[in-house]
């Protein structure tokens, strides 16, 4: 079949090979420019005065200033929002990780009735969009006075993180040889100790991947934070920044400075976990 096509339109089929190198580089360079431009734009604008931003939006600042950062931090509310985001992210990551480890241990190392059906149901929950659960949950939380409350949001975030966490950890725990667990059991190790002192330490790549992916998600989450944390003091950084957009509509560089500050923790985390992270993507599909 290939030969037939080759003789039929040889010219067109070999065209990519002749001009291929040029086109490939052209496409990748174009993609790089489009990808990097907004990043450049945010950083550069954060160091411009309001006046310079109006006159020179594209090029580097002639006289870089730090005043936008101090303006963003003015009045302490930004610190409060930052703290809220940190509390919610750390809380949800810890809770979901602990609970997911326990479940993944059962799924990977124990036999019980209905195992694969249960795992399948949990994995399917991964794609249920939060918007469909928002209204019942909001009505419930409002009824029992748990809006503007860390605990309720941490619980919701953990529930949303659990399906993927259980899925990834189960896949990883399965690869840990059972003979290792057997010999520990002969030495008198209880199951819970086997989990915490053998399986979890051996699963560092999977756990780091989860910490990175789940932190990125929680840190960036907008919808739930917007609805469940409406009082000004309880807002998260992302909701706060969306608010900055309207509040500093005439002083855009301040918003840009706030966005730089909000992204730095995630870049640090990503660099820290990158090595494991790319591996994690290849082993189980990570949600975009």
């Amino acid at each position: 079949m290939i030969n037939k096509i080759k003789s039929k339109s040889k010219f067109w089929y070999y065209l990519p090979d002749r001009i291929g190198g040029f086109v490939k580089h052209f496409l990748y360079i174009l993609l790089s420019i489009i990808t990097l431009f907004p990043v450049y734009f945010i950083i550069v604008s954060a160091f411009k005065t309001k006046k310079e931003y109006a006159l020179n939006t594209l090029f580097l600042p002639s006289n870089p200033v730090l005043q936008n950062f101090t303006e963003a931090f003015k009045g302490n509310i930004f610190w409060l929002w930052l703290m809220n985001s940190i509390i919610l992210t750390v809380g949800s990551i810890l809770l979901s990780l602990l609970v997911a480890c326990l479940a993944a241990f059962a799924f990977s190392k124990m036999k019980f009735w209905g195992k694969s059906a249960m795992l399948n149901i949990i994995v399917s929950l991964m794609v249920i969009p939060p918007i469909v659960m928002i209204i019942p949950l909001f009505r419930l939380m409002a009824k029992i006075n748990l809006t503007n409350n860390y605990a309720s949001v941490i619980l919701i975030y953990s529930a949303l993180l659990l399906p993927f966490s259980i899925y990834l950890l189960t896949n990883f725990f399965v690869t840990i040889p059972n003979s290792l667990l057997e010999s520990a059991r002969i030495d008198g190790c209880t199951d819970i100790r086997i989990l915490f002192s053998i399986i979890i330490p051996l699963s560092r790549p999977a756990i780091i991947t989860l910490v990175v992916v789940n932190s990125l998600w929680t840190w960036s989450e907008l919808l739930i934070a917007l609805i469940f944390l409406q009082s000004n003091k309880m807002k998260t950084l992302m909701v706060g920044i969306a608010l900055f957009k309207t509040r500093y509509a005439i002083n855009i560089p301040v918003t840009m400075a706030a966005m730089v500050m909000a992204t730095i923790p995630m870049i640090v985390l990503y660099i820290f976990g990158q090595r494991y992270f790319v591996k994690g993507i290849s082993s189980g599909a990570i949600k975009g």
Partner: protein
Amino acid sequence: MRRNIGRKIQPFLYLLPSIVILIFIYLYSFISLLKDSFYNISTKTAVFVGLRNYINVFGDSLFWDSLLHNLIIIVVTLPVLIIFSILFAVFLYERIKGWKAYRVIVFLPYIFAITVIGIAFSYIFTYRGVLNYILNLLHLKFLALDWLGSPRVAIFTLIFVIIWKELGFGVILLYSRMMSIPEEIYDAAKVDGVSWWQNLRYITIPQLRSIIEFYAVIIVITMLSWIFNYVYVMTSGGPGNSTNVAEYYIYRRAFQYNQMNVANTASVILFIVTLILVFIRFKLERREEEIID
């Protein structure tokens, strides 16, 4: 005997925390969502109204408009994301010069919050923004537009930003799958003098077929029900309602107009559509596993 029972319930003790959380958040929501859709919940005590909420939602042209916008977004992003994911993954696989740097750049958008990137783009795309400034410098002033302010263009600007953010994931997903294609296939093809195009058409794409299908379903689910953030920070559904999508429709009905009945019932409909997609995804995954086995 006693030990035996212990063995049997032990797995469920480990599963208990997960089950409690998942039942509380997911199952509770689904049941009360479904139940409430047959009641009027805006009064103090809920009153049974039968199918009236559904009739109201289906009779709301804004609901259909919103779904239509989701559909437009799906129809445009699906081929673009798939074609470019394949191309850029193949280029990475071929180790073109600078592939290591490209791999980092391609994945960069994944780190940025949609809120952050959406706000940055909304300043880039305003009429007096950077993009029009650049067009002006290039003597292409006639192309200058109010990218997010004109009803006909805004949804495509939104789509551009969504693609900007989502493409990297697809590239890395396909790239990492390509790494597991046996190299002998390509070696054999090289001996036969196969062209680049034939390589792609007869080796790479068939080998990636199942993961591409899987990715396609993920794209459809994402574009149907995970794009609230883009709309919220960039257009607020406007201008007019030209970028209103299902999620934003529900959000606005519930939390801005206080029309809980409509919002709740629209959620049920979105949920059912998502369930159908989950089912398709599940089927595809099953098939993929069979192929691997």
